[in-house]
């Protein structure tokens, strides 16, 4: 059987063997939990509680602050201690609601109420998903209710479950598919309830044969859900790459997946949708992988959102004795964020905590580009990274845009493969932000000019009338 895939990409060291054998276990803590108002893409949420308030698990403590934004829920019951800036995974201070857990896990009203999703309308399901604060928990953190509300719902042909887990080291999605395939399928069926004309596709990389077997078994009697095996290659789980691999459709940065008739959700997000809609349990927990060669016992754990990484690491056995890890990463090695402190909270898009003995970045200093063209070969977006890097070095925004730098998905393949260890992806991230900023300024200026022109016209007309 030929495997679905895309063109380009790389094969970084997978490292899945460290944690893939560890069954998901639940960890609970007392003490303080931290809920950043911004957890993923979109506007930060607005707090609806104040210091001193008593909150319950599953209670909304901050409401979506815009269309593309998601509610924040408390994962514990206890007292709101403060709303204050705290460091988050990106290394910046960001406003957080601090809740001291009372250890009782009292749940808010309505939590745990079972529902029959087949009796719900699309709007009702989307509303439940929105209230439950669900975002893409595979890593991007895009609000799921927005994804489920495309402009033309009738044009959605495929609901794609992303089970590729193409980032090295991560095994949480694998364990989820292996242990709870029924939740994944359930979430898929809930989505298909919203888009009855669509077909469900569960796509899994072929380095996870056990997961493929488990999911195939559960989907055996589902005529409308197909399991597709993907070639193991990074970044197979990138949204654009995945859509191409399973449907042959291509999209770029200016096109939404839904415009190509596709809605892609991570398998963990689908399980969360199932929990929210059918079991009445909003997004309060998630499965994360603790792994890396410096970790004593690599594992997969289900933790409450807001728990801080240092306590989780301590609870699972910590770092190997006598060792100081060179680097901690929140997320995968290809797209995750390096942490200089572990006292940051687990947020919705967090997928892992990795600790490494060696930092491959600092131990491989940058040398001159030899124009080998490897970056061109691996770029899944068909860009020419070495030329983009030149534009970035010269801070030439125009050239960067002309070379389609805004199509970069920041997957890191070019930096990974570069024999001269040039910071390609890294410089593109900076440039993409600059270009986006420039676009915003230009758009604002154009708007202002338009307004001025309209005003001048109105004035001229007024004068005419006066005459």
């Amino acid at each position, binding site marked *: 059987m030929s495997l679905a895939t895309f063109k380009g990409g790389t094969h970084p060291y997978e490292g899945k063997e460290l944690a893939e054998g560890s069954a998901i276990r639940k960890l609970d803590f007392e003490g303080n939990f931290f809920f950043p108002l911004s957890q993923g893409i979109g506007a930060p949420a607005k707090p609806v509680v104040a210091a001193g308030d008593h909150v319950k698990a599953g209670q909304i403590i901050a409401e979506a602050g815009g269309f593309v934004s998601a509610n924040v829920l408390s994962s514990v019951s206890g007292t709101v201690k403060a709303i204050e800036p705290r460091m988050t995974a990106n*290394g910046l201070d960001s406003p957080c609601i601090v809740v001291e857990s009372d250890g009782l896990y009292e749940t808010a009203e309505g939590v745990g109420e079972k529902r029959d999703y087949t009796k719900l309308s699309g709007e009702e399901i989307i509303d439940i998903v929105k209230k439950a604060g669900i975002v893409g928990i595979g890593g991007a953190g895009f609000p799921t209710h927005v994804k489920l509300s495309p402009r033309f719902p009738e044009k959605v042909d495929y609901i794609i479950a992303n089970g590729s887990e193409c980032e090295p080291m991560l095994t949480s999605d694998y364990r989820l598919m292996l242990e709870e395939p029924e939740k994944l399928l359930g979430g898929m069926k809930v989505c298909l309830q919203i888009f009855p004309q669509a077909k469900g596709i569960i796509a899994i990389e072929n380095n996870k044969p056990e997961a493929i077997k488990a999911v195939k078994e559960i989907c055996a009697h589902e005529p409308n859900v197909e399991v597709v095996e993907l070639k193991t290659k990074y970044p197979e789980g990138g949204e654009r790459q995945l859509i191409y691999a399973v449907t042959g459709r291509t999209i770029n940065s200016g096109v939404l997946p839904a415009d190509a008739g596709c809605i892609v959700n991570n398998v963990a997000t689908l399980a969360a949708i199932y929990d929210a809609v059918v079991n009445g349990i909003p997004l309060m927990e998630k499965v994360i992988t603790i792994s890396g060669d410096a970790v004593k016992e690599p594992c997969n754990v289900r933790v409450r959102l807001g728990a801080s990484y240092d306590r989780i690491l301590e609870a699972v056995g910590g770092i190997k004795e006598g060792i100081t890890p060179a680097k901690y990463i929140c997320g995968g090695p290809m797209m995750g964020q*390096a*942490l200089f402190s572990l006292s940051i909270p687990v947020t919705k898009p967090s997928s892992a905590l990795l600790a490494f003995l060696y930092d491959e970045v600092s131990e491989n200093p940058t040398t001159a580009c030899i124009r080998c063209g490897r970056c*061109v070969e691996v770029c899944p*977006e068909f860009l020419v990274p070495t030329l983009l890097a030149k534009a970035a070095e010269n801070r030439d925004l125009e050239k960067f845009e002309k070379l389609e730098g805004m199509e970069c998905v920041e997957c890191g393949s070019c930096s990974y493969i570069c024999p*001269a260890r040039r910071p390609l992806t890294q410089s593109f991230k900076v440039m993409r932000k600059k270009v986006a900023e420039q676009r915003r300024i230009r758009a604002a200026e154009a708007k202002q000019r338009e307004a001025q022109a309209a005003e001048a016209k109105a004035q001229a007309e007024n004068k005419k009338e006066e005459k």
Partner: protein
Amino acid sequence: MEGLRNISSSPHFRSKTDTKAIMLDVILAMLPAMAISVYRFGLRSLLIIVVTVGFAVLSEYLWNLLMKKPQTVQDLSAVVTGIILALNMPPEIPLWIPALGAVFAIIVVKQLYGGIGQNFMNPALAARCFLLISFAGLMNDFSCAKIGFDAMTGATPLAMAKSGDMFRYGLLDLFLGNIPGTIGEVSALALLVGGAYLLFTKVINWRIPVVYIGVFAVFIYIFGYHDLYQVAYQVLSGGLIFGAFFMATDYATSPITVKGQFIYAAFLGILTGLFRLFGGAPEGVSYAIILGNLVVPLIEKYTIPKAFGKGGRKAK
């Protein structure tokens, strides 16, 4: 500094292959050709290789030292340049000529233009052309009189082809290397083994060598010989195979775009055909590649691929 960790922007993994590893693979790939050259032409070959490599590395080392630049000799690229230049020398060349060539390659062609990756001509080839123009007599002397290689006296197979005699050496002689020529180009077999190694280790891809040799063969078949034996004779003699696998594929001086690689290789094939069929000299590979190098920036400019999802090449 207890408690402080390394911070960097993702990705946090790096592939095992760095510049040095690539250069090492290229050196390994040239070992068969070097071995054959020593077998055929004796220790004289080894001496030429040692001299060029030595002078190439020394020039780069001293340049970096004098210019107060970070040392780059450890990336082995100067060694590669030295070996390629050596393999382009006739066996009896006085040693000061390859030494001069190595200095020219590294200082003038490579470092003056900014060092590794910045040179717009293949350093070893540019040096060879420089020597060919400056010392035409010595560079074209394949008589082997002094080192007493009786079996291989006289003109190279290509020079004989030019004068109409194509049958003194059989195709097997050409393939194995029982012919006069520069010390590295004689054995097609050794070069193909090395080329296969480069393809296998993905140091190069098939596009440039295959298209180059293919277009050349078709070109001379149509415009010259109309005869497969003579086409095979042309492909196996001279520096074509060495050039196609080891010199035309030089990273710095070949296009990085896929489409560009096809165009560049086809251009080289046609140029080489033109030079060999209609030029004054019997050989044309070096000049073809040097001229090809010069149009690489232009080729690249017009072959930037369309981004994914913007109507570009369909992935499969």
